[in-house]
Every structure is written in structure tokens, then in C-alpha cells.
């Protein structure tokens, strides 16, 4: 059962001018089926709108994120992708003048319902940012466990958790001897993996990644993409990326966002394979073939 796509005009574009490479990359991935592990029933956005003051930035996005999958959000700059994922963990509301409409269901319950404890939501829906932001006043170990301290969570075995998270983030072997050094001493790629480990320590069901590799060099980027692939069996991942090759390499499903000067909208969503080789919407096709963006 593939997720529904919005605004489908029903055009079946038999695209002949495909960039062979993207669809090849996408086809080369092992296609994942929605997982069946204990990840909850997933995250669903229903008719989400977002405003910054008067400006209508995002319009009517409905998207399902299936447990255990990686979904990439692609599209040109400024079309609302980052705004959208910030509505998924209620970080959007920090911006002065922010407003929203619609629902975001986590395990079937709206995270914007009155009386919801927002800090608990953010424990279940974690985030990794574009620029790595480890806490400089803390050591590597303290950074990873920072989420526990912030939310005052009790854990029986901190060392095990520490090792597990760093292992899952692909950083353990590099830092296991210097867990007591400060977080700022690592390279950019290592810092970002540290941030991933930190996000994992509170055991989120979903991990949102907002262009996590755009500030990194290609080597670190590939390492993080490997990490994402390994993580997706235990965490649902949503990744915003400008890099279409990355989306093709890493994701199971891809959603294409576009803004025509007005609010950003989601134009099409489908399995990554489909989006890159047989996009249904002409705009999607134009984008993935590089005609704009």
C-alpha cells in the first residue's frame, strides 16, 4: 500500500528524457517494505498548514511516514520542507508569529491536541540539524546522554546506552577512548554523528533530519548515509535534502515539495524508485531531471 499522493493530475508521463543515473541509483537500492517492528503505527501529517505571521508558508500537506522507512523530502529552496518537518516535532512554534493548522498524528494521537506535553513529543520525535550543534560545555559522553539529563530520565545502565548509541551512530570506534574529551574537538562529520547519537539516546520512534550533510564533506556525508541506512530498521527517518542523489541513495519514499510563489505544497509522493524513474507530475519530472531547482 503506497501512500497517497496529493494533487495528482492523473498524468501518466512516460518520461523519456530521464537522467539515467538517478533512477538507476534508486533502483539499485534494496526496496524496503514498511517494517513490522515495535515502532508504533508511525507518524501521519494531515492537512498541515504553517504560517509565519501573515505569510502562509506551507499549505495542506498530508503525508504518512511508515515505521522503519526512510522518507526523503526534496524540492527547491524555500518551498517549505524545513518548515514542514519542524511541524512534526513542534519546533515550528518557537518562531515568533508562528501559527499552524491541521493535525500531526503520532501513534494515532494528535500532537497538537490541547493538554499534550510537548516535551514528551520531542522525546519520541527527535531531530538532527543542518549544522552540527554539540554542547561545547559537555564531554562526548555527556553530550550523548544530554537528552536524558534534560528530560530527567532514569536509565539503569548509562554506559551501555552510551556505547549503543555511539555504535548505532557509527562513531563508537572513533571515540571510545576519549569519551571524556569535549564535544567541540571532533571533526564536522564526527560532530554530526555525535548529534545523531545524542538524539538516539532518548529512544525516539522517529528521527527528523534537516539537511544533515549539507555542511559536511563528501566522505562524512557517505558515512552518515550509511548510518541512516542502518538506523532505519529501528527508527523511522525523515530527511530533508537538497541533494537528489542522496535522496535516491538513502530513502524508501520521496516527497517532492514546490512553491509557486505562494505557500509551499507537496506535489507528489511515492516510492523513491517511482519518483525518480516514473514521476506522475510534470513538475516533479522537471525537478528530478534537473530542468530547474
Amino acid at each position: 500500500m503506497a501512500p497517497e499522493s496529493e494533487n495528482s493530475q492523473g498524468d501518466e508521463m512516460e518520461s523519456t528524457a530521464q537522467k539515467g543515473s538517478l533512477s538507476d541509483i534508486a533502483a539499485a537500492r534494496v526496496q524496503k517494505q514498511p517494517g513490522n517492528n515495535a515502532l508504533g503505527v508511525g507518524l501521519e501529517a494531515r492537512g498541515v498548514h504553517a504560517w509565519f505571521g501573515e505569510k502562509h508558508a506551507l499549505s495542506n500537506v498530508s503525508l504518512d511516514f511508515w515505521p522503519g522507512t526512510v522518507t526523503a523530502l526534496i524540492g527547491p529552496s524555500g518551498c517549505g520542507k524545513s518548515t514542514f518537518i519542524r511541524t512534526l516535532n513542534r519546533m515550528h512554534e518557537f518562531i515568533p508569529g508562528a501559527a499552524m493548522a491541521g493535525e500531526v498524528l503520532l501513534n494515532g494521537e494528535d500532537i497538537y491536541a490541547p493538554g499534550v506535553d510537548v516535551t514528551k513529543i520531542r522525546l519520541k520525535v527527535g531531530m538532527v540539524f543542518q549544522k552540527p550543534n554539540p554542547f561545547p560545555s559537555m564531554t562526548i559522553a555527556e553530550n550523548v546522554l544530554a537528552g536524558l539529563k534534560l528530560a530527567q530520565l532514569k536509565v539503569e545502565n548509562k554506559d551501555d546506552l552510551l556505547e549503543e548509541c555511539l555504535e548505532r551512530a557509527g562513531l563508537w570506534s572513533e571515540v571510545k577512548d576519549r569519551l571524556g574529551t569535549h564535544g567541540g574537538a571532533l571533526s564536522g562529520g564526527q560532530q554530526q554523528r555525535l548529534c545523531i547519537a545524542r538524539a538516539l539516546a532518548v529512544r525516539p520512534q522517529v528521527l527528523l533530519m534537516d539537511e544533515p550533510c549539507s555542511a559536511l564533506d563528501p566522505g562524512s556525508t557517505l558515512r552518515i548515509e550509511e548510518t541512516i541506512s542502518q538506523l532505519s530498521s529501528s527508527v523511522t527517518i525523515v530527511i530533508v535534502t537538497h541533494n537528489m542523489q542522496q535522496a535516491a541513495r538513502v530513502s524508501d519514499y520521496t516527497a517532492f515539495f514546490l512553491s509557486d510563489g505562494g505557500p509551499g505544497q507537496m506535489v507528489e509522493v511515492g516510492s523513491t524508485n517511482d519518483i525518480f524513474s516514473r514521476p506522475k507530475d510534470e513538475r516533479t519530472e522537471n525537478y528530478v531531471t534537473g530542468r530547474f531547482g
Partner: protein
Amino acid sequence: MHFLTSSNWDAVTNDAGQIDVKASHFGIAAMLIGTMIVAVIAVVVGVPISVGAAIYLTFYAPNAIKKIMVSAIDLMAAFPSVLFGLWGFFVLEASGEYWAKLLNKYFSWIPFFKLPAPYVSRSPFIAGLVLAVMIIPIVTSISREIFSQTPLDRIQAAYALGGTRFAMLRAVAFPYARSGIVGGIMLGLGRAMGETVAVYTVLNIVYQVNWHILFSAGGNVASMILLKFGEASPYEIKALMAAGLVLFILTLIVNSLANLIVSRTGKSGR
């Protein structure tokens, strides 16, 4: 100025005879201690209020009220010190005495709060309170500036991990701002040490060391200079100027240290 060497730093001495150079000796020890006592009270009372207010203004205040409050506090920084003196004398005095009596009643097992005689008006305590009010604008303003420079990406990281606002402050804002706030506190201390007119108005200036801050006697170097200047003989004036020099050096040290600390904030972020 060779009179600097005649200041006795350990003995409490009195200003004495007029022209008899040999009989009179000048030492400012009592007033130096008085300066520190009053300034410390000011800092102990004023700093928590200032830092708390700065945190509120940076992280909690709704935009509508924020500007008004910030302007109000900055305006207070421009009030003339004689205004604080008058206000302290006429308005704060009454509440101050009330608090002093209360402190004496419940806490007189602490030596500071004992009263050798039941006079509580115009005490170092009240002078300290007035000075606390005077340093609030400075310390609040500096603290606010420092807090507002807390790096946004770390703040977001803390929230994204599920932290409450206080948890975020503890993990990100406080470590970042710590040294800068210390600098701000020292600047407030420097201001409190040098204040003249307000202290003169509010404090009953008696030339002796008075550790019982609730008791009505005390002074600081600046107000003592002001007091004695009117009728001082030329010889005495030189001593007063020496006192002024000492005060200047003291405040210079405090302020320089403070500026050094403030300018280093944020470079390491710890």
C-alpha cells in the same frame, strides 16, 4: 602623593586636630571596610534580582511588554544619584527599617544582624538596599545582552531533545553566559563602591567600623570625602585626596577585571 604612605591600613584612626600636623593622623581603614560592606550588601541583594530579571526579559517576556520593560530599566540607569538618595531617605527608609527590625528579630543569632542599640534608621543595610536598586539597571542590562547572544543552534538542540525551558537554560544558556555575568556583577560592584551622594544622604556617617549592618552607623570612602571636604584644612584636604586616589585605584582594579571578563565571554562558550 606621599600621604598615601600615611594611610594606616590596619588601624582604625580618627581625623583629629586642625593644624597640629603631628597629632592628627589619617587612616581610611574604617571607611574602606564600610565601602566594602555597603557594596557587598548591594551586590547580594541586587544581583539575583538583576540576573533573574535579565533571564525573564531574554527568555520569557512576551514581545509586547519586553520593549517597555527594557526601556524602563535603561531609563533608571540615567536617574541622577541624588534622586536615589532622596527616594531612599524618604521612601525606602520606612520599609528598610521594617525589614531591618524583622531581620534582627529572627536572625540576630547571625552576628551581622545584632543591634548594639536599638537604632535602625540610616544603617548600612538601608544604604546597601539603595545601592542595590542603583546597580540593578547596569547588571540587568549587561546580563540581558549576554544572554541574548546565546547561540540559537544550541538552544534549538536542547529543545529538540525534549527539554523544558528551564532544562534548556541550565544546559545551554547558563554555561554560556556564566563568565559574562560575573563580569557584569563586578561592574555593579564597582559602581556600588564609588557611589557618593546616595550613600551620603541615606547613611548616618560615623567614622567607625560597623559590622552590624542593621545598626545606624557607617560610611564609605566616597561619602566620607564629601562630608569632610567642606570644612577641611589644606592639610586635611591632601589626606582626602589620598583617600580619593585609593578609591580610584580600587574601582579601577574592579572595573578592569570586570571588563576583561566580559569581553572574554562567548569565546569558549563554557
